[in-house]
């Protein structure tokens, strides 16, 4: 703070002048710092937002034209070359089923592990669990896929492809994320609420179920949905575990399934189709690329929808004040 006195302009008392000087004292260095940091922070924000906006815009502008009722409700069965009458229904079904299955596997394991770490765990075991969860967070997704393949090869023999193997691969990726986010959410529940519950003669397990989980349910849901969003776009592990197909398959325990990211990848790698009679309504040369953009757009919309659901759940379940 500058304490320099300035000449008294308005003829007020010396005390007023000194106070004015202290309160208005222009600290040039600090102001410059403030400006610099403001500019820095805003540019960091713009740099962070630019790719995101650009990505959404690109996918939207390239994919929107391909979206139609047929595209969303038909499979690629018996569709060859530049035929534009195929769709991604089989891939949507596959993505939803496999992701749902992965969630069903990961949430109980991850949530219970988080409860163990926050409410029970102490000492060596808890530290070990935390350490391995951290390590698992960094597992490359293809390794998770290969793990699931080799695990099922032990039981079913080589070459088996089915949805549930992919779900297992995804849950290997998902469990550490669920544990981490749920752990943070459970830690946020004030200890006072646990003590209030104990003091009413409520056993520990009921306190956890009815007070701790109930209080943090909004945050837990958000964390779980973020974990789902993390795995719903995985490609590599699904390619090696679930394979590819052009047909609709509702049974994750039997046969190959298609998923949106794998579909986008496959279509993209097909490249241009050859149209012997030139481009027409039944033969579009770059239809595969269009399909890939369309699938990418649908995937993004799915993730967006999940996040919206998360927000709504958050609003319904979070503690209300009035």
């Amino acid at each position: 703070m500058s304490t320099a006195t300035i000449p008294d302009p308005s003829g007020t008392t010396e005390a007023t002048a000194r106070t004015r000087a202290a309160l208005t004292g222009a600290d040039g260095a600090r102001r410059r710092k403030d400006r610099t940091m403001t500019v820095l922070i805003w540019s960091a924000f713009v740099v962070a937002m630019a790719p995101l906006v650009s990505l959404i815009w690109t996918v939207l502008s390239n994919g929107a034209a391909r979206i139609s009722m047929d595209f969303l409700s038909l499979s690629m069965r018996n569709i060859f070359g530049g035929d534009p009458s195929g769709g991604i229904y089989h891939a949507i079904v596959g993505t939803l089923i496999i992701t749902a299955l992965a969630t069903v596997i990961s949430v109980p394991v991850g949530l219970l592990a988080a409860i163990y770490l926050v409410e029970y765990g102490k000492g060596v075991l808890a530290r070990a669990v935390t350490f391995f969860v951290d390590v698992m967070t960094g597992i490359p997704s293809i390794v998770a896929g290969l793990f699931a393949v080799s695990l099922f090869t032990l039981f079913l023999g080589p070459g088996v492809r089915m949805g549930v193997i992919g779900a297992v691969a995804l849950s290997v990726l998902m469990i550490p994320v669920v544990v981490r986010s749920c752990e943070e959410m459970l830690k946020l529940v004030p200890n006072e609420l646990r003590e209030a519950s104990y003091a009413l003669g409520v056993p520990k397990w009921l306190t956890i179920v009815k007070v701790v989980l109930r209080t943090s349910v909004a945050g837990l849901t958000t964390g779980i949905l973020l974990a789902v969003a993390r795995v719903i776009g995985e490609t590599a592990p699904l390619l090696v575990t679930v394979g590819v197909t052009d047909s609709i398959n509702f049974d994750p325990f039997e046969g190959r399934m298609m998923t949106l990211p794998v579909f986008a990848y496959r279509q993209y790698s097909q490249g241009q189709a050859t149209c012997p009679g030139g481009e027409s309504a039944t033969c579009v040369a770059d239809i595969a690329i269009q399909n890939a953009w369309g699938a990418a757009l649908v995937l993004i919309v799915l993730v967006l929808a999940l996040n919206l659901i998360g927000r709504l759940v958050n609003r319904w379940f979070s503690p209300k004040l009035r």
Partner: protein
Amino acid sequence: MAQRIDVKDLNIYYGDFLAVQDVSMTIDPQSVTAFIGPSGCGKSTFLRTLNRMHEVIPGARVEGTVEMEGVDLYGDDIDPVAVRRNVGMVFQRPNPFPTMSIRDNVLAGVRLNNRRISKSAAEELVEASLRGANLWNEVKDRLDRPGSGLSGGQQQRLCIARAIAVKPQVLLMDEPCSALDPISTLAIEDLIGELKQDYTIVIVTHNMQQAARVSDRTAFFNIAGTGKPGRLIEMNETSTIFSTPAEQATEDYVSAPFLVRASQDVAAVGT
């Protein structure tokens, strides 16, 4: 009905640290017993051993006995959960469950324990408990509103209603008014006076006048210095403690020099 508590040679540890040493006292039923003393002297720690709440803190343990009508609370066959149903507790800061309505907060002891209760019985319990906590008239029209929407003093009375809805025999209060304004404090003090007809009440307070106003007997705890264990210095009729205490330390604390110390306590609590 209200039960008598006998504490004999109680040592309380956190891990290896002896927090409170060698406390013996008798707490009479249907009376209010106040614990006073400087911050950190172990009043709250001791209070929490009376319903085994201190066990919630990892590493906490006790030596000695706490007998309720002759039954040792730390006996091998004693269930700490059952102890806490018998000995209710009200905390320093009001802590209603934020996800529950006022009604559900009062019923928390029933609902959280998965006990079934008929609708009419629940309504009766809610009204009786809220009336018992002098809160009924203020909240009867908004029982379905969240408990956290009430004022601090109302929240604390809601917590008392929640505690007495479990029908305990003993009620422990850990500085129940320290976060409240004088009017709410008065409401709670009046309530304590009424509740002692039915319960054994133990209250920890930093407020000498409060101890003098509400309690029948007062126990003075003190601590020799940082890192030393807290001890029970003296326990007697409240009037005796505040007029002719037997120990010089008590005299010092409750009389003139106390004013200085009390302000230090307030500062310590504030930090």
